[in-house]
């Protein structure tokens, strides 16, 4: 497999244009009757990136993907593939390929013919066709499976055929619609790394739709967190995790402790019980009135080492192995704390034990206080 050649090709493609994004969505809206699935969404996806659209079911992520693929037309707004606007262009004239959630392999065709389907439409024939298909089957570690029918393959193998069938066409962008949803946990973990490596090798832009935050963080370079048809926040996995800008993002990606309070000075927030805590410099960002201070569970210490402190009482303890998770009752509500079990012989705290929690102001983030988010 000439991986170097593929990297070379992708470099050439990158050199051809002057940093034009592969996909640009310009104020896209899609409504189905009264329901607005995608609401005035704008987005640019840079060339060669692994981009994830992450959100709960019904947030509009799949609809967005289907509009890029050409299976749905936006009610309003424009879609650009490179420099070309593609509204009204049918799927078969768009330089994108899709890996469907159900794989949608053609049951009446062999694995070889499934992968060859796109090439045949372009008029590739004979040895050239055979060479390309076999090279691609080799890339997804399925050489020798060409004569079988899809139903004779396992779920993971079918998934890889779906990838091969799409990638063999060297599209500008590969769209993946919840591609790992049907696989069991172990296989899913394997495929996450496999797909990430594949993307790195072929250098094609991947857009990956998922509701699984861990999957998105493992695989993608950049993630757009979607909620109710809009993008809540766009950024790298660590940006989204360390500095979520909304309560929704904070609670959708991992566990967050959100303490409500009121702005009490530059970089200071007074919590509901009157305790004043410091936040990261500039993170209030001009906010006034009620806000929520967020701290990730692993950034809180069960001692008074750090400047921000709260007294509490252990309510529940769960031993997870690598760490122990505590639910601690405080005057500002329950706080989840995760303590790494990296010191042998440490006596764990039990329910009812009193303790002081502390954390570094640098470990905090601030979001708007929302009803119902705690």
């Amino acid at each position: 497999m000439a991986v170097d050649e593929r990297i070379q090709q992708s470099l050439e493609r990158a050199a051809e244009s002057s940093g034009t994004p592969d996909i640009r969505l310009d104020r896209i809206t899609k409504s189905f009757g009264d329901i607005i699935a995608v609401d005035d969404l704008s987005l640019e996806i840079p060339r060669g990136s692994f981009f994830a659209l992450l959100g709960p079911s019904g947030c509009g992520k799949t609809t967005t993907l289907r509009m890029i693929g050409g299976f749905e037309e936006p009610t309003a707004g424009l879609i650009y593939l490179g420099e070309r606007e593609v509204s009204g262009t049918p799927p078969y004239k768009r330089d994108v390929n899709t890996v469907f959630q159900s794989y949608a392999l053609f049951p009446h065709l062999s694995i070889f013919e499934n992968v060859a389907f796109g090439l045949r439409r372009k008029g590739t024939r004979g040895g050239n066709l055979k060479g390309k298909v076999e090279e691609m089957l080799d890339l997804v570690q399925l050489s020798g499976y060409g004569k079988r029918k899809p139903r004779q393959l396992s779920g993971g193998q079918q998934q890889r055929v779906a990838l091969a069938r799409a990638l063999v066409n060297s599209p500008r962008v590969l769209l993946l619609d919840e591609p790992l949803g049907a696989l069991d946990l172990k296989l899913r973990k394997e495929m996450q790394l496999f797909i990430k490596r594949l993307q790195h090798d072929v250098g094609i832009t991947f857009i990956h739709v998922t509701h699984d935050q861990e999957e998105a963080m493992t695989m993608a370079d950049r993630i757009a967190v979607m909620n109710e048809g809009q993008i809540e926040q766009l950024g790298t996995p660590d940006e989204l995790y360390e500095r979520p800008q909304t309560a929704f993002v904070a609670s959708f990606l991992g566990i967050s402790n959100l303490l409500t309070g009121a702005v009490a000075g530059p970089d200071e927030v007074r919590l509901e019980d009157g305790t004043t805590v410091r936040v990261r410099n500039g993170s209030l960002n001009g906010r006034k009135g009620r806000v929520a201070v967020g701290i990730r569970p692993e950034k809180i210490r069960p001692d008074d080492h750090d400047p921000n402190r709260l007294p509490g009482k252990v309510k529940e303890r769960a031993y997870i192995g690598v760490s122990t998770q505590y639910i601690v009752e405080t005057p500002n509500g329950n706080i989840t704390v995760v303590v790494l079990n990296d010191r042998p012989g440490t006596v764990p705290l039990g329910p009812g034990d009193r303790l002081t929690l502390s954390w570094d102001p640098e470990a905090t983030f601030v979001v708007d206080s929302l009803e119902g988010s705690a």
Partner: protein
Amino acid sequence: MSSIAVPTAREPNFLATVLAVVRRHVLTVYSFLFFAYLLLPIAVVMIFSFNNPTGKFNYTWQGFTWDNWRYWDGVPGIRSAIFLSLEIAVVASVIATALGTMIALALVRYGFRGRATTNILIFLPLSTPEIVLGASLLTLFLNLSFVTFGFWTILIAHIMFCISFAVVTVKARLVGFDRHLEEAAMDLGANEWTTFRKVTLPLTAPAILAALLLCFAISIDDFVVTYFNSGSEVTFPLFVWGAARIGAPAQVNVIGTAIFVVALAAMLVNVVFQRRREVRA
């Protein structure tokens, strides 16, 4: 079952023993009776195709002969009747299946105004008594002064009642059809027509073939609707009807047997083919 035998064991009773045997074999006996009921008329048709009747009537066994098979078209009119029936059945089933497939696709795929109504209307010819269909079609044709009864009126009538069967058969298959397969084809560069040819059609083919055979079978033996709308043309069922009034010749049994054998062979081929596909899978 066994507990019933306990009280009778004390005083062996003939009636009880018989009843016990019947109880044990009741399903077998019932099945035999059922198949006898189902197959006896066909057996009679077959046997009497080898009869050598002395007079007009082919109702009592007179002796064995191959003559009826050798001279299968030895009765005036039977040959043209058979060919007319075959011709109409082929044309009607092909047109009805083509139209029915398109209607089924529309009904399953597209939400349009009046879809529910169309669904009900499609079922109407299936539930309307044939005699009503035939008679009302006759009235319609009579009112259209330019219509002359014959081949075309029979064909129109047959296509009409076959369409519903074709729609129902193809629809059943399309309901379970994964739409993503067609989207995948288009995604891979196939336009609408290529998608239909390469994906939709091959996957729907078994249902379309079934619809075709069903329509053929219904058309070739239709009597009631044809009787009303045939004018002076005579199809095979009409020929049999006419012949029976003066004494049906044994050739009628020959044709009947031949049709049965062909249908049986087609069915067996289908079963074998399906088995092979399953084994390969």
